[in-house]
């Protein structure tokens, strides 16, 4: 059986694409580079939108990337069930593209924050979290200036009642996110967006002092193999 193929998208200003590709490879999948200007998903089985400052975060984080030619292919594919993970700027892009509800706004503390953050896994039914235990606490780095999740009351109520809040900050809310929300999913559970960075927590030697990020990639592999 050939390895699962996970596309890693690079926009101008994307920064974590190398880390994303490494995390995918370490899990045993093939990392397929996808370029923002190509209208081509190269037949990948899943897509990872990594973090960074695409287009310098100018206008709003993710606002310009959302209109990239690649997104014209990605948006319908994601609505059709293609597993998509967006971290940090990737999460912001997914919200701007309306693949996920709500928006990410300036941190309540006004500062960019880089720290190792405790996160609680609230939903283990998604394509990217099925290998975690419900309620499991993990440690992942966060590093963002605009990660405060906001949505109107009706949207929040739907997210909560449908169990679509996938991750919550534990041990202190770093950015003022409503409901301590760190990550959410769509109704189908194939699209997940979160501010923390699983790709920076996959090796003992480098990155955060945890390897909890591996669970994201073993989850998607398991899902793809069983699909």
């Amino acid at each position: 059986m050939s390895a699962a193929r996970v596309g890693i998208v690079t926009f101008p200003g994307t920064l974590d694409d190398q880390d994303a590709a490494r995390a995918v490879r370490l899990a045993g999948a093939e990392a397929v580079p996808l370029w923002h200007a190509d209208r081509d998903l190269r037949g990948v089985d899943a897509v990872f939108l990594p973090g960074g400052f695409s287009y310098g975060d100018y206008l709003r984080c993710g606002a310009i990337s959302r209109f990239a030619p690649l997104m014209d292919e990605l948006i319908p594919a994601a609505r059709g069930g293609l597993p998509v993970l967006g971290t940090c700027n990737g999460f912001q892009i997914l919200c701007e593209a309306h693949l996920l509800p709500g928006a990410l706004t300036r941190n309540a503390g006004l500062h960019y924050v880089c720290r190792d953050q405790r996160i609680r896994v609230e939903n283990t039914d998604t394509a990217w979290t099925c290998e975690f235990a419900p309620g499991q606490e993990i440690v992942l780095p966060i590093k963002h200036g605009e990660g405060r999740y906001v949505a109107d009351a009706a949207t929040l109520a739907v997210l909560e009642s449908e169990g679509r809040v996938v991750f919550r900050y534990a041990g202190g809310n770093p950015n003022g996110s409503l409901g301590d929300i760190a990550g959410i999913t769509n109704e189908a559970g194939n699209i997940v967006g979160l501010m923390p960075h699983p790709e920076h927590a996959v090796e003992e030697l480098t990155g955060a002092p945890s390897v909890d990020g591996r669970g994201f990639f073993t989850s998607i592999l398991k899902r793809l193999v069983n699909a």
Partner: protein
Amino acid sequence: MTLDTVKRALETPGERQPYAELGMKDDEYQRVREILGRRPTGSELAIYSVMWSEHCSYKSSKVHLRQFGTKAPKSEALLVGMGENAGVVDIGDGWAATFKIESHNHPSYVEPHQGAATGVGGIVRDIMSMGARPIAVMDSLRFGGATQPDTRRVLPGVVEGIGGYGNCLGLPNIGGEVVFDPCYIGNPLVNALCVGLLRKDQIKLATAPGPGNKVVLFGARTGADGIGGASVLASATFEEESQAKRPAVQVGDPFMEKLLIECCLELYQADVVVGIQDLGAAGVSCATTELAAKGTGGMRVNLNLVPLRDPTLRPEEILMSESQERMMAVVAPDDIPAFMAICDKWDVPATVIGEVTDTGRLVMTWDGDVIVDIPPGTAADEGPVYERPLVEPAGQTALNAAGPCRLPRPTTGAELRQTLLTLLGSPNLASKEWVTSQYDRYVRGNTVLAQPADAGMLRISEVMPGAQDTDRGIALATDGNGRYAKLDPYTGAQLALAEAYRNVAVSGASPLAVTNCLNFGSPEDPEVMWQFAEAVRGLADACRTLGVPVTGGNVSFYNQTGTDAIHPTPVVGVLGVIDDVSRRVRPGFVAGDLRVVLLGETREELGGSEWAHVVHGHLGGLPPRADLEAERRLASVLTTAAADGLLEGSHDLSDGGLAIALAESCLAGGVGCTVTLPGDDPFVDLFSESAARALVCVRPEAFDPLAELCARQGVACHGLGVTGGTALSIENLFGVPVEELREVHTKTLPGIFG
């Protein structure tokens, strides 16, 4: 408006020119007239004034800096030394590292956010122009007193500027310093370091050889950034009222810089660059004169072709503009289409503005008229050189005589405990997390060690394609201590090197090479010049003894307000290599049940110490001895022990002595310890700042091999106790819960800066 052409200059030899307003002395202006055999045009005057400025020509420091070359230790690792955009060292397995530290002090005082941001941008472009991928940054920062009002204006802006720019570039920030002292009020020091990686056979140089090769300006468009000086020139040449005052502040665009990095790397990969130079201070003036001077010797440039953000700019202003995110490349004509295609892919504007000639002249035109016609070397390399007068400061002897021996000292356990907590919570020793949490230390996934570790460390194998077969890592540390240098600039500079060298060794890496940023007051003050000369002499001597060459750096003069100069502050960066990066040593006490071992000798050395500073506001006496042979032996023990897998955790002893090293080691791993002090005087044991010492923790069975290694190297080795528990306990004196240490350590900066 009259264009000041070469023809016009010949016709109007007696026209008064605003050279003094541009910072040129009478004799310097006369020399330009002699070189050219006529008066310079306005554009030529712009070029000479900026290229012969202190900043670009090193005219006051050159005679001293030569020692870094003449006294340099023999080093097979040195591939490119001083005089290029940055030094390059061989790190093994076919790879090379390039690194440099540079100041952006004054701009960071004027506009902290943009000043610091463009400081990062500038040093990153220096590294790019060597052919390297920039892979990490560090910042050495000094501010006025932490609670002084202006510090609350400057520090948050500087930190935001560094973070905003570096984070957006995707460069991990892996270390540096934050120091407070009232002497830096009005003159903050923002010294930015960047390190890059390249294959050692792919070094690029700033040179323009090959007549017919094209000169390409690429990156951001040119605007009126940082050309306050040039408006003086323009207003004298044209109607005065037509010239609005141009802004002195340069504004950075990190997104453009990120595109420029990726674009340059692809250009290098495609091998379409003959020579390259970044545009920093002095912009187009500097890039054209330096490229031409180091190449075939001539260049022709049509200044009308420079893409402008502000179409009203005059040629003199274009020449002096310090607009950021610009590079200049020399490209063979056949490679131009490939070059342009890569720039296009990355949305980087690129324009051919001229070509290389063999005339020995740099000729520039505007609207078809020749406005510059000079031998480029006279601007780039043959600037004035001054041997400025030196004199030992009037109060130096008295300062050195007023040692700390009469200051009241803590004696009881309770007093010693309180002294530890007072120091640990003082701004210079308190946790810098408020600052460093605003920097991305993880991006690109190669960060092995970052602040608060003694040194930053990066894995090499995944930095660039093709490096996967090397196990090596590089380590970097910067250090400096203005109080030590004030007491004795010769020793102070040596201690700065010794500490950075030690910090690299503590991580398990072998120190290899040095960069430096020399921050001083006015060179026209003979007392400042004495401090400078002593510091350079000390640093050059220490580099020779430690076997680490200076590869480059930067001098920042005029850091003074009125006649009050800052403490002389040589900041030294050391780069080291670890053969197997998985052997890196983590900071502090990483687990319980480990033996705590102090390496090195403790003497009573409290002059310039953190204790004297914090508790008594005292500065006097002499700094600790710089025992460089002892440093060398200690480093040898540390790197050998790391390679042999003997060390579990380590930390160097510096500001605040053993007391602070113990506390920080407990905080690093969240593990306590129980130790017995080795000497007779607990105060000296705890707070003396003798150099050449380190604290390590080892598995019990590793203690004997470590002690043997120390004995062979002649390094003192004291078993102090064991790690474990939830408190830092000094037998028979006092104990402090680790949680109390943490609270004291972490609350200070948030308490001041919010």
